């Protein structure tokens, strides 16, 4: 149970990677570009989280679905995965919509 949240994020990320791989939408289309985007996004949201924690706006919950492992005060391990996942999903969605719009444009 304590691994549920982490497993959900990783699992969802894996599913997105299958879509990404199948249609070459983001990481599987421009690996280096995508990795740079993911790295910048990761740092951006991590800093946002750390500032929010510092301002005491945000704090970790006590859910049984979390491991309880903290990488920093009030920052659960799962959050690192979530941040990466958010950036990845954004990139894949952008590639997906671009592809769909591409095909609609070509069909006309």
């Amino acid at each position, binding site marked *: 149970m304590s691994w549920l*949240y982490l497993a959900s994020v990783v699992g969802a990320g894996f599913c997105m990677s299958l879509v990404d791989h199948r249609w070459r939408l983001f990481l599987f289309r*421009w690996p280096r*570009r995508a990795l*740079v*985007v993911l790295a*910048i*996004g990761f740092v*951006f*949201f991590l800093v*946002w989280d750390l*500032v*929010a924690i510092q*301002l*005491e*706006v*945000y*704090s*970790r*919950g*006590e*859910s049984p*679905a*979390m491991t309880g492992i903290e990488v920093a005060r009030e920052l*659960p391990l*799962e*959050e690192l995965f979530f941040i990466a996942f*958010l*950036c990845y*999903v*954004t*990139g894949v*969605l*952008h590639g997906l*919509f*671009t592809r769909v*719009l*591409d095909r609609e*444009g070509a069909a006309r």
Partner: protein
Amino acid sequence: MTYLGLAAVFTAFTVPLLAVAVVRRRPDRRWWAATGLTALALVVLTAVFDSIMIAADLFRFDEESLTGIHVGLAPIEDFAWPIAATILVSSLLLLLAPAREPAEDRS
């Protein structure tokens, strides 16, 4: 600082990036449409999953720092994340594309 103020500051950081990307690369309507649709999809996902995550007590907010406006259980300030992510990722994709190649190449 309130969570709204914090959200505004970080989201504001992404706007110059968008401006530079758009001015330098002049993306076509397809890029704008894809970016808009991405934002919409992420906002909907946020409304659903943020509420679920809060209900599951994965994280907590200091209630006094919030405006009190919620969508489901999600504080409205949390919607800054999908907006900022969309602007950040979409702008970087434009800027990191090779200068001579169209922003979205067909291959």
